[in-house]
């Protein structure tokens, strides 16, 4: 905004800085607290926001080591956090690969090929993504319960079922990739086809290498989406060894067994990498954002 500068200008700028910093302190409070809590001995508030003594007991437990407390008692890790993280990463990697494969091929058809009902299909995709999976939980549970009677590794409490349940969430990704394909001129592929390449060769050897950045972004988004998904995983997974991080983390904060400090360390350990990934991915996400995507 081009403004006519007056005397109160400096005062306004200082006020804006002060306001922003105050707001930031308020919003950053949970993050600062969680770091402090993870370094504080014991699992309860000990009376100070900044710990007097620093203890790495919670970090040891989060990383899967036992430790001996002051009274000489050996304390074992309460939950297999690293195992949960591995479950999450495994499920998310497979899901992201499947989602990328399915959405790229569909996006290619929507961007480059002619077929009837294209516009209708694109609108339908937008419509489909308005209905979150949480509305279909009962059916998802019933379906996988039934499948499990015949194929145990796709039944309730299997990672296969979770991956399958996630595989359909591609509507928004199709839009994202299609949008990127639209920005790439079709001349290169047409030239390749004139030179005798098939549609598939033009798609595989010409278009995809140029679209690599968006493929990486969609892979990352699908990966993050699968890691942070809670409702579907919470009804499909039950045994402690099978849980994903999103479902397991809740177990730390039951009133009867309140492990605040242990949770803090585990939360930072698992939350930090995902946050960094998301910050990297969101750079390219702004287009997807403004087309109606909301993250959970």
């Amino acid at each position: 905004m081009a403004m006519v500068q007056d005397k109160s200008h400096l005062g306004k700028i200082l006020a804006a800085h002060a306001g922003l910093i105050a707001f930031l302190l308020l919003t950053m409070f949970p993050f600062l607290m969680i770091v402090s809590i993870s370094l504080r001995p014991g699992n309860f508030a000990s009376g100070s926001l900044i710990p007097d003594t620093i203890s790495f007991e919670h970090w040891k437990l989060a990383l899967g080591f036992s430790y001996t407390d002051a009274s000489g008692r050996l304390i074992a890790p309460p939950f297999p956090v690293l195992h949960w993280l591995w479950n999450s990463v495994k499920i998310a990697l497979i899901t992201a690969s499947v989602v990328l494969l399915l959405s790229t091929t569909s996006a290619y058809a929507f961007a480059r090929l002619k077929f009837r009902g294209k516009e209708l299909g694109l609108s339908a995709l937008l419509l489909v993504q308005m209905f979150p999976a949480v509305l279909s939980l009962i059916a998802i549970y019933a379906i996988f319960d039934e499948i499990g009677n015949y194929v145990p590794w796709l039944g309730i409490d299997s990672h296969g079922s979770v991956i399958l349940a996630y595989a359909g969430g591609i509507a928004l990704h199709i839009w994202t990739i299609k949008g990127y394909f639209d920005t790439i001129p079709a001349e290169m592929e047409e030239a390749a086809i004139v030179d005798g390449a098939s549609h598939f060769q033009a798609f595989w050897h010409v278009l995809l290498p140029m679209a690599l950045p968006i493929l990486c972004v969609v892979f990352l988004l699908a990966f993050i989406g699968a890691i942070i998904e809670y409702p579907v995983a919470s009804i499909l997974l039950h045994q402690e060894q099978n849980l994903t991080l999103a479902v397991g983390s809740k177990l730390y904060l039951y009133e009867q067994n309140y492990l605040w400090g242990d949770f803090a360390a585990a939360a930072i350990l698992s939350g930090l990498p995902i946050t960094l990934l998301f910050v990297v991915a969101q750079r390219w996400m702004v287009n997807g954002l403004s087309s109606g995507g909301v993250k959970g």
Partner: protein
Amino acid sequence: MYAIDWRRIGKTAGVVLTLLALWLVFGIYRAGHPWLASGGLAFLAASAALFSWQRAYAWRYLYPGIVAILVFIVFPALYTMRIGFTNYSSSNLLSFERATAYLMDQTCTSGGDPLKLQLLHRGQRFELVLQNEEGGAWHSAAIALAADKPQTLSLTAGGDPAAGEQVPLRDLIALQPALRSLTLNVPGLATPYRLNSLTSFAPAAPLYRRNTDGSLKNLQTGDVLRPNFQTGFYQTAAGANVQPGFRVDVGWKNFVRLFGSAELQAPLMRVFAWTVLFAGLTVLITFCIGFALATVLSWEALRMRTTYRVLLFLPYAVPGFISILIFRGLFNENFGEINMVLHALFGIRPNWFSDPLLAKSMLLIVNSWLGYPYMMLLCLGLIKSIPSDLYEASAIAGATAWQNLTRITLPLILKPIMPLLIASFAFNFNNFVLISLLTDGRPDFTDSLVPAGTTDILVSYTYRIAFQDSGQNFGLAAAISTLIFLLVALLSVVNLKLMRVNAQDKR
């Protein structure tokens, strides 16, 4: 070009996939679902036709994605609505066939003396020695015990329990499932013997016999059970239900219960009111905060704007399940840091989790924290797209900053952001993760007959009915889900209309 012959690879892959699918269809047929199998076969034929038909070339690319969406998104949604018209619940869990099979498997001891079991090791195998009270003894051949395949053994007279090493009780307990699957024929006795306690076999006969008209006759009491397809139970002549029930269609009964019965209608209306209020207030608050931040950050005279933007964005980047749980801990009434600070400053310790009003405010505070960065990003983008000559003109006319904001920025932003606000409303309308991880719907209404929470929104209420209550009433929960589907569909239609209008304006 490459030496790889893609076409041949594609064809081979197609043939392999088709064979695999055929094998799967055959498996379904073998498992006793001829209709499902023929459906699968038709589906397979359609897919094969699609992939070999040149004119449907585009569909080769579309097909996998579309099928995934249809199978994993659309089908579960439709199936949920379908379940809303059934009595599927923990008391009516099985299909009719399974419930019948369960009853046919029931046995009763038909009098007769029980035989005491001694189990002897025979290398890797086992020998059963059975004795009655009069001193008679029978024994089996050495057999392998496995729970998953039922066996029928013919015993021979004679046998000495001291003739081998006895299996200790501990292992005997571990072998119970396998022993329970055995049926023993004792020479000279007509009824077969089955395990009836830890170490004894007793003559057992099936409890029910199936009549030709589909009714079951209880062989012990002579009662006749008839399946009632209205209630989903086998019933005696006196009308008593026999467990287990089975799934049947109940028509609109679930919906009638939801709106007709006072015990369900009252909590549903309260939950619905809170859902709308929660989603509406969330959108309003997050938009106000996001818009305010975006206007400040668009001010070019301000330094370090990028740093502020990245830091302000952080709450959005942290995985929801982690930040919500962090708040759950911070707000804890006894050990939470927020109450610690409030107590130190003002001497108060609010009951965030047990007072309904405070619990609702807590949800709104946390959700605003989670949601404002998204609104900020949207507003930043939209403010950037407003032509700067508008502001130059207003500066010449001597407008104040406030006038700029209310006369130029806000009106120009409101139209394009409307569909996104509605999408955000729809998202928060179904914001299950927040409710489930922060309050779980609690505190509960104290005056309600069916359990319902003051902070429950429709989806979390559905989840509670389906997965947390002892009744596990899937049918009723699915009926509520159906209502949510309709509401979301309504929102989506409005949204698509608005977007279309906006798109036309741009042209």
